[in-house]
């Protein structure tokens, strides 16, 4: 390595370990650190209403869930239309703790990180189980198999009195070192916690993708016959991919349960599953940064449409609720447009911008 580690120019690798770095130059690392500091620091300076804080929390939770879905769909090439059900498994793990030991038990209020990890493991177990059809099924048929899991999940929750027939099951307020997290700090507190989860899990995914546990996913996607000949067990790899996706979904579900302080089945319907799929596609399948773009874009679109329909609502007084009509319309339109014109998602725009700025101000 040359002396100037701030620029990519003139730096050559002299060992294979150097090539494993996540950040190749000091500049990359600094920009990333600044970005993180900004993400953690801005609530200290600005104050926004709980309504918008909740939106941010939702985006972050969606990022955790889409991490799993992108690994499954983008990297391992296995379609899942039941991702919201996996998220639901995580949330209902918390809910069943709350049903059995009471919603204000110390385990739920004080040991909530353990509960969240438990929910993730539960998601992974269910993921592995639902992944079993992937040993035999591919493409559309696998999609139908996962869809049926979504249906079974919804049916199961709605008909079990243990789960309150899908009505809200309360989860207590959590405690931090400073005592109970109160009503005013609730959303801010969870913003920080979910952000920490996103960063840790994000780095986890980044590392996995550099190792055999990430490569084997792509191998199975591209050619499972060859993967078999290269010493991987394709069936096991597919089940592992589902378990991994289930883990992320489970964590997202537990975070969702804690954030809303309750679990109801409406958040984990087929509609939500399609939403996660849309986020994964719009973000960019099979890319790491797509995981972050997708949820931000879709949720941002949601807010914009809401504001727009409020604006239109002033003029169309006879229309009862413009938002109900516009939301699914714009959502569907965005998916179709992305599939048609940018199937590689926003991550591709990011790639283009990056390669352009790399050379700027020179053309080539």
């Amino acid at each position, binding site marked *: 390595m040359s002396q100037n580690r701030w620029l990519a120019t003139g730096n050559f690798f002299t*060992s*294979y*370990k150097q*090539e*494993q770095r996540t950040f190749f130059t000091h500049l990359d690392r600094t920009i990333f650190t600044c970005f993180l500091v900004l993400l953690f620091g801005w609530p200290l300076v600005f104050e926004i209403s709980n309504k918008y804080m909740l939106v941010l929390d939702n985006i972050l939770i969606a990022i955790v869930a889409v991490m799993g879905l992108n690994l499954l769909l983008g990297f391992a090439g296995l379609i899942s239309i039941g991702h919201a059900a996996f998220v639901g498994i995580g949330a209902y793990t918390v809910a069943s703790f709350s049903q059995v030991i009471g919603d204000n038990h110390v385990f739920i209020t004080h040991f909530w990180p353990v509960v969240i990890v438990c929910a993730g493991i539960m998601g992974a177990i269910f993921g592995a189980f639902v992944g079993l059809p992937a040993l035999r099924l591919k493409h559309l048929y696998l999609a139908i198999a996962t869809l049926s899991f979504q249906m079974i999940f919804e049916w199961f929750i709605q008909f079990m009195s243990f789960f309150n027939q899908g009505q809200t099951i309360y989860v207590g307020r959590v405690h931090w070192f400073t005592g109970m997290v109160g009503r005013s700090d609730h959303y801010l507190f969870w913003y920080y916690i979910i952000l920490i989860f996103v960063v840790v899990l994000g780095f*986890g995914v980044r*590392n*996995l993708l*550099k*190792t*055999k*546990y*990430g*490569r*084997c996913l*792509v*191998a199975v*996607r*591209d*050619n499972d*016959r*060859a*993967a*078999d*000949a*290269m*010493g*991987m*067990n*394709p069936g096991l790899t597919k089940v592992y991919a589902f378990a991994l996706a289930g883990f992320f979904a489970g964590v997202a579900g537990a975070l969702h349960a804690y954030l809303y302080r309750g679990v109801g089945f409406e958040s984990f319907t087929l509609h939500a599953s399609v939403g996660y799929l849309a986020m994964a596609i719009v973000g960019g399948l*099979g890319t790491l940064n797509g995981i972050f773009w997708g949820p931000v874009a879709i949720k941002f679109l949601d807010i914009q449409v809401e504001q727009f329909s409020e604006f239109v609502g002033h003029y169309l007084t006879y229309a009862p609720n413009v938002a109900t009509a516009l939301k699914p319309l714009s959502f569907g339109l965005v998916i179709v447009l992305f599939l048609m014109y940018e199937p590689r998602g926003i991550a591709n725009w990011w790639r283009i911008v990056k390669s352009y700025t790399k050379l700027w101000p020179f053309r080539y």
Partner: protein
Amino acid sequence: MAHLKISDVTLSFGGLKALSHVNMNIEPGLITSIIGPNGAGKTSMLNCISGFYHPTKGKILYKEKDLSHASPHQVSTMGIARAFQNLELFSGLSVLDNLLLARHQNLTYSFFHAAVFYGKASRVEAENRKFVEDIIDFMELEPYRKNLVGNLSYGIQKKVEVARALTLDPEILLLDEPMAGMNIQEKEDIVRFVMDIQKERNVTVVLVEHDLGVVMDISDQIYVLDFGEVIGSGTPDEVANNPKVIDAYIGED
């Protein structure tokens, strides 16, 4: 002692017999070729050895172990690697990643090491990267290391296919028509690589090939298949003078 012993292997799909009562001895350190007209069962034979098909009858013994019911990933860990006839590469990955994938069984870190990517995972990755670089050097793939495999030309992809099989560090390398669809120059290159693989890396090579000129030049031993049966075997000279083989290729007078 025979390295790989194929005794009385029969493979049938319903009423169709792809292979019937095939006997072969693959001797260690030699280049053994399997030739025959189209549909003679050459690729079926390779599929049986590498575990994609399981023979209906008969046994495939490798170092006293029966391979006839092993799955492909078990066979590949035992030291038998295979390059495919139609390119079966991971087209969305770089050449480097394709080769690293073949090191899958040798990357011995745990999932949690991988998630943290510190210590063991990093070290083992670097070690295996070194091995992969040796193969890249050996197969002269240096310029394409970071290229996506799907974007490379056919000839290079064929080379990557061979390199990937070689990255498994096998004792026996099964090559299924490595020269199909190549021009003379590329063919000469591959022939040179096959001979280098045998001599420098001490790998036993099993070659399925249509180009008889190449086969007669480099093989130590040849088996001729026709309609799923072995109709001749021996050194190139013996096979070339075998009347049954001449019949199968040129037809009877």
